[in-house]
């Protein structure tokens, strides 16, 4: 797949262009190039997170541990900010629980690709799954039939490595480093925006996105917590499912089911076949 429009010769690094799969390429390299955009966005955010955890009183070893065992940007930023306001342990854990509840959605929607893997594999896979590497892996599973759970796990571990090392460096450098958090955090926002665009197959998906946006604002403001993310996602995805079911059975010619053309690639990013599975 060729890069259209702007040519950026100086940025023509392998991870910037769509990869033509090379069967002889070792797995560690092909998965690394898949994970690379995420890895690179983790560096500034991880540094910022390490700096904040340091300021909140976490030592470097604990910062490394929390990055490995919780491995969630949102959670670690929340720990740092709640520690600085001296919140009690139990209320931090409770807030973490609400924040992490959305991982149940990730696991549920990814599980059909993990059927047949061993119990040990599922355990290890779950430990290092988070929003961002889920986004990368879901897109790969949906568009690349050869993508295996083992490769998905490698993407998780690459992102874990970059995240943890960045956090540790941030913790070591401490407050000497000034990072504008709102700016670097936008890397993840951009990553999710990209993922939304890749999910758009037909007009119905756009409609579901709009409902999801409205519901997300409503429930975030209503619950005053990240629980709003879980509620709005459950409802809007269910609306999408119900609408599609209704339209396919009652109005198969509906304009809602029209495909949205996608420039830059010949086929839609998410294959139609994946619908029937």
């Amino acid at each position, binding site marked *: 797949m060729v*890069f*259209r429009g702007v040519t950026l010769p100086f*940025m023509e690094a392998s991870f910037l262009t*769509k990869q033509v799969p090379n069967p002889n390429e070792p797995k560690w390299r092909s998965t690394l190039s898949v994970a690379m955009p995420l890895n690179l*966005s983790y560096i500034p955010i991880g540094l910022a997170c390490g700096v904040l955890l340091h*300021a*909140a*009183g976490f*030592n470097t070893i604990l910062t490394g541990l*929390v990055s490995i*065992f919780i491995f969630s940007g949102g959670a670690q930023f929340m720990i740092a900010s709640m520690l600085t306001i*001296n919140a009690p*342990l139990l209320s*931090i854990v409770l807030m*973490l629980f609400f924040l*992490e509840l959305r991982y149940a959605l990730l*696991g*549920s*929607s990814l*599980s059909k690709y*993990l059927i*047949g893997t061993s119990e040990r594999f*599922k*355990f290890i896979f*779950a430990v290092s799954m988070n*929003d961002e590497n889920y*986004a*990368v892996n879901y897109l790969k599973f949906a568009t690349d039939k050869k993508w295996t759970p083992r490769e998905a796990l490698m993407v998780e571990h690459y992102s874990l490595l970059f995240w943890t090392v960045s956090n540790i460096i941030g913790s070591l450098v401490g*407050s000497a480093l000034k990072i504008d958090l709102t*700016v670097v955090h*936008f*890397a993840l*926002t*951009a*990553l*999710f*925006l*990209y*993922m*939304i665009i890749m999910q758009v197959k037909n007009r119905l998906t756009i409609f*579901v996105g709009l409902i*999801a*946006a409205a*519901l*997300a*604002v409503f429930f*975030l*403001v209503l619950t005053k*917590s990240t629980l*709003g*993310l879980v509620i*709005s*996602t459950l409802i*809007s*995805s*269910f609306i999408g*499912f119900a609408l*599609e079911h209704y339209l396919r059975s009652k109005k198969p010619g509906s304009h809602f089911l029209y495909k949205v053309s996608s420039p830059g690639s010949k086929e839609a*990013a998410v294959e139609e076949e994946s619908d029937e*599975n």
Partner: protein
Amino acid sequence: MTAVNHWNTAQHLLLIILGFFVAFAPRYLPIKIFTQRKIPEWFNEWMKYIPVSLFTALVVKDVFVSPTYQFDIIHHVPEIIASVIVGLIAYFTRSMALSVVVGLVSVFLLAVVL
């Protein structure tokens, strides 16, 4: 900045251990349950809409909702404009890395200008 929190290392460690369990349970249980049983077709059809809904919710939280959970557009103008740019870049180039890089650069420049 000096440390404003006076917890000791053991308390921090306890927080990490408890945090691990509350993060691990929702990560693990659905994978374990839904890979074992026969999943009804409607469930998979529903789950198909999870990514677009969740990613939209995450973006909306970053772009339209303040840290104190108020709907806020005025203080997010750079992010809103940068989001439109990222959307266009993603649509036309289909490159994740380019979307992220352009997003970072544009939000940085817009924050300086606006």
